[in-house]
């Protein structure tokens, strides 16, 4: 019963030592934010699993946690804050598919917060069927001219760079004709409009692209390799979704509400307990998934997390409303708020459970709907036969759409 992972211990020690060194050399209290983050990048503590010289130390990704725990304790700035999409999804994609110049061009500005990133994948006609992207990019000399419409773009109104997939060849089957770009959100022809949602606010945007000129240097990966490149982005999105927001979630909110009120129908106690158990088991599953990933033996519990998360949010806030009773007939405000730099900073700690109840309906749609996640589990984990595909070997231009 002795641990054999001595390597792992050595890695952990190295990361801790380097973090402590960074904090000694650049005391957070007296160091400018950009200067600190720049030093953190140089120390390889931005993404410890990245290559040396590119913000990392070539160590297991799980050790990044050790860095953040210590930086937060010391009150140091956080390089993800306000640029989660750039940090968690943009950077790994650039690293995996960009060339040396692109690594040089994009990684440091992401980490320093000089450039905020957003994602421009979904379209009105390409939701679950993401590869059905119809936004066209046509080569024009050294540039590409883009036209199309994107949707469900969070942060787009305050971002500098957009990760975008566009169709560069409509005459081949749909997965083959896509190319990946990182476009300048301030370029002429890029128009960002807030998209109001059922909660009243506008957390997302629509992005209209009209004759937007994008240099070929902003292409990530080869022409027509866009689908593969986008997978690098999406894999990281699902990790984000499955693990976020577990601090003061629906179960804790419900338990608080339950305890605040003095009497209850017995049915509510039953549901409260059931929900608490589900929440606990989901947390345990996420921990198990993280441990297995860290140990290099990822299991299906990674993919199941997103389904469980959505269900817990939805059923959990339904219970909250039942516990609120007739107050659930009312709402706090349907005024349309847009996402701004300010709202980003003041990240509210207590959101009305009725708003969260409405918001939770999107949890089973965004970032891969529960239906798509079920397909993935059935086909990739259980090895069941794939869906019958009518669009597989047909040029995109001839696939029925609507």
């Amino acid at each position, binding site marked *: 019963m002795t641990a054999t992972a001595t390597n792992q211990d050595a890695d952990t020690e190295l990361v801790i030592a380097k973090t402590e060194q960074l904090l000694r050399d650049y005391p957070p209290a007296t160091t400018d934010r950009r200067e600190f983050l720049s030093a953190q990048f140089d120390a390889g503590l931005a993404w410890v699993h990245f290559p040396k010289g590119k913000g990392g130390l070539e160590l297991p990704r799980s050790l990044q946690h050790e860095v953040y725990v210590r930086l937060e304790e010391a009150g140091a700035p956080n390089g993800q804050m306000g640029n989660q999409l750039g940090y968690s999804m943009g950077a790994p994609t650039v690293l995996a598919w960009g060339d040396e110049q692109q690594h040089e061009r994009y990684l440091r500005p992401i980490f320093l917060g000089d450039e905020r990133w957003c994602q421009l994948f979904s379209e*009105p006609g390409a939701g679950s069927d993401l590869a059905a992207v119809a936004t066209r990019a046509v080569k024009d000399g050294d540039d590409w001219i883009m036209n199309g419409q994107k949707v*469900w773009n969070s942060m787009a109104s305050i971002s500098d760079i957009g990760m975008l997939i566009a169709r560069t060849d409509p005459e081949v089957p749909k997965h083959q004709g896509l190319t990946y770009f990182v476009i300048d959100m301030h370029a002429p022809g890029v128009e960002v409009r807030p998209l109001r949602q059922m909660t009243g606010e506008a957390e997302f945007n629509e992005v209209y692209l009209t004759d937007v000129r994008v240099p070929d240097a902003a292409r990530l990966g080869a022409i027509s390799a866009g689908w593969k490149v986008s997978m690098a982005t999406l894999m990281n999105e699902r990790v984000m979704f499955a693990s976020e927001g577990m601090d003061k979630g629906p179960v804790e909110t419900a338990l608080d509400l339950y305890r605040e009120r003095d009497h209850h129908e017995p049915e509510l106690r039953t549901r409260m307990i059931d929900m608490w158990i589900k929440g606990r088991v989901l947390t345990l599953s996420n921990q198990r998934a993280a441990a297995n990933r860290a140990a290099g033996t990822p299991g299906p519990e990674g993919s199941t997390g997103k389904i469980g998360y959505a269900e817990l949010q*939805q059923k959990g806030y339904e219970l909250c409303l039942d516990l609120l009773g*007739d107050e659930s007939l009312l709402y706090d405000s349907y005024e349309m708020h847009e996402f701004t730099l300010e709202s980003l900073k003041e990240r509210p700690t207590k959101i009305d459970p009725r708003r969260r109840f409405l918001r939770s309906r999107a949890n089973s749609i965004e970032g891969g709907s529960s239906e798509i996640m079920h397909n993935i589990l059935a086909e990739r984990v259980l090895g069941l036969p794939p869906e019958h595909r009518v669009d597989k070997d047909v040029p995109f231009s001839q696939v029925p759409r609507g």
Partner: protein
Amino acid sequence: MTTTEETEELRRTVRRFLDQRSTEAEVRRLMEDETGYDPAVWKQMAEQIGLQGLAIPEEFGGSGFSYNELRVVFEEMGRALLTAPFFATVALAANALIECGDDDAKKAYLPGIASGETIATLALSEERGGWDDKAVTLQASGSGSDWTLTGGKRFVPDAHVADLILVAARTADGISLFAVEKGAAGLSTEVELTMDLTRKLARVTLDSTPAQLIGTQGQAWNGLRRALRFAAVALAAEQVGGAQKVLDMTVQYSKERFQFGRPLGSFQALKHKMADMLVDIESAKSAAYDAARAVADGDADVELSASVAKAFCSETYFRTAAQGLQLHGGIGFTWEHPIHLYFKRAKSSEFLLGSPVYHRDLVGQALGI
């Protein structure tokens, strides 16, 4: 009992009317409008098709039809998300009057309701909510025919536009019912912001407000409870109508929306979900229609039927709306798509007149367990 054809003719008439007068654009306009209804439409409903008086006895100015017909009207209104004080006036106030055992009050108020002149409502819940006798704590002062009310009521549908507010209050011998008319001294109303903007709920504040006692002092609860259950049956019919509309929208969308080169509706997992919605709604219809029949026939266990219908149809509507929203994908989460209006109506009507949890408990009591 009417034949199916007559009921279906009524349905077609009401649907045709609402298709024109309660369009999505109109519903959205009224959602943002604090008054919350269109007086011209209200008048047409009464004068052209006689909806307000449909189930009011002929001797009190109505047409004397039964709940077998009225439930069709509520079904269609639920389908169209009609934004108007119809539920408050017809399901709550008219039923409370019909069940109050006070012929003078009936004569005084029912004809105005039937003709469309009177908008009315029932004020029961208070600060903490709830729809049973325990919810009523407001104390009336006075005696004989000289009463005043002081206190607050909440979650009162359309009280802000009501000509007549029926108020449940405590008197020496129990719960009594009072009539408070618009403009009465000390009466004020304030619309609250509702999750479901298509049904307005108001706070009512009474400050030594003169009120007319209806029925016998302290003896109102039995009639009120019956009226609340009958209103719950109307609500169940609304829920069934809304749920059917959501299914229709969802089926339609799934035939038109293509993903992976195929209509969404060709994916078996989605087909089975829609089939489940259908099973659920057909069951809810059985519960709602039977409860309406039980009201019409005056069944001895009509209150049980009402609780069954309210509990079952509430959950069917919510499940249907939630599933329908899911099957619409991202578009269903936007403000501009109508499905969230149904979703919110579904959730809110779960609570109105007592949640499924509450009504299931009543069923348990009726079973003696």
